[in-house]
């Protein structure tokens, strides 16, 4: 594990678990989805990330300090969530440490939930979800479940790094990316991504609740979206719009 990032375990962590990730990115899709899953499944905190690479921030919950990046658990499911925008320059060491930790814990499948910025999002009634995999097995899962695979293009940000580092270690990792607003919190996209996640891992979560509270979620997520927006610029997120130039397979 990288020296600059520590993952501190507070309770026993299940081994061979499936792990979902909700990290700030376009539309905060992953954060909204994973937050909904943690809250509805009443998952408990089992570990947290401690790093000098993060801003000097704590999050207060019921009067007590917590790390802004935490790992929750419920039976055989782990969930990683960040309550702050992660500085673009810290993403690589942080994601590498998280993947190393997943490797140590024998995480069976890692699934990152996120969004893919779609310029005409206002006109899309039901956001489509695309999948990306770290190895042939993850692509097989996606195809068997009828999830459209993103065959070519660029991915930028936390999901991209998790996929890359998992591919290096041959950990089965999947990214589920729903069509989303680039810089507005998108609960509808989060609901779409939860529905698709359910095809791979059964998470008994009611998405209608998320859709009903959509306006409240958008309002609550305004400030983290604003800060995430700055980090998206720093990480050159717009490169995802680029058309790939290569012809090689």
């Amino acid at each position, binding site marked *: 594990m990288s020296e600059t990032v520590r993952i501190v375990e507070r309770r026993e962590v299940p081994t061979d678990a499936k792990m979902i990730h909700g990290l700030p990115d376009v539309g905060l899709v992953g954060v909204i989805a994973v937050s909904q899953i943690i809250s509805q499944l009443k998952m408990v905190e089992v570990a947290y990330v401690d790093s000098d690479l993060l801003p000097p921030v704590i999050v207060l919950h019921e009067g007590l300090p917590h790390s802004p990046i935490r790992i929750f658990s419920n039976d055989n499911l782990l969930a990683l969530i960040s309550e702050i925008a992660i500085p673009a320059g810290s993403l690589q060491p942080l994601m590498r440490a998280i993947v190393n930790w997943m490797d140590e814990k024998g995480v069976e499948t890692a699934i990152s939930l996120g969004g893919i910025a779609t310029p005409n999002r*206002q*006109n899309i009634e039901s956001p489509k979800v695309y999948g990306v995999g770290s190895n042939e097995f993850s692509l097989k899962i996606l195809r068997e479940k009828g999830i459209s695979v993103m065959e070519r293009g660029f991915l930028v940000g936390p999901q991209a790094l998790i996929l890359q580092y998992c591919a290096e270690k041959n950990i089965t990792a999947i990214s589920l990316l729903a069509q989303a*607003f*680039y*810089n*507005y*919190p998108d609960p509808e996209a989060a609901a779409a991504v939860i529905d698709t996640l359910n095809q791979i891992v059964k998470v008994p979560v009611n998405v209608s609740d998320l859709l009903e509270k*959509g*306006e*409240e979620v*958008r*309002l*609550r997520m*305004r*400030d983290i*979206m*604003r*800060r995430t*927006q*700055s980090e998206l*610029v720093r990480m050159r997120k717009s490169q995802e719009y680029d058309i790939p130039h290569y012809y090689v397979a």
Partner: protein
Amino acid sequence: MRRRRSIFDIMREYMEEFERAAEEALSAFEQPSWDLETQSLQPLFNISVTAEEVVITADLPYADPKTLKIESVDEDLIEITAKMRVKLRFEDLGVSHREGEFSSFHCRVPLPVPVDASRAKASFKRGILEVRLPRRRGYKIKVE
């Protein structure tokens, strides 16, 4: 003798200038996104410029569409306001150490290029306001 600036010098200067401007723009985020005096929240907004128009969008959850106002403050500045259908207190958002409530959205959006406001169009869909302002046309140059 003064050395002529290479294209790389010019590019580096341009990038430095751009980064300074970006930092300045980012520092604006270091203010709260709410104003207790006016009981208003600053919405998230976005500006994009195409060859034909300037497109401004703003995320306005809980906004009452009938109260939406888009007004020009200056030639290069427009103001967006809307009343919310509900009043929200800090407490409703889980914050117990602050007091105050909010009932509207308010923001001022700088226009990066001249526009023809008389041909502007606005729509409100899925809680997102979209304002399309055609760019002002200048002169035409005939190609010989």
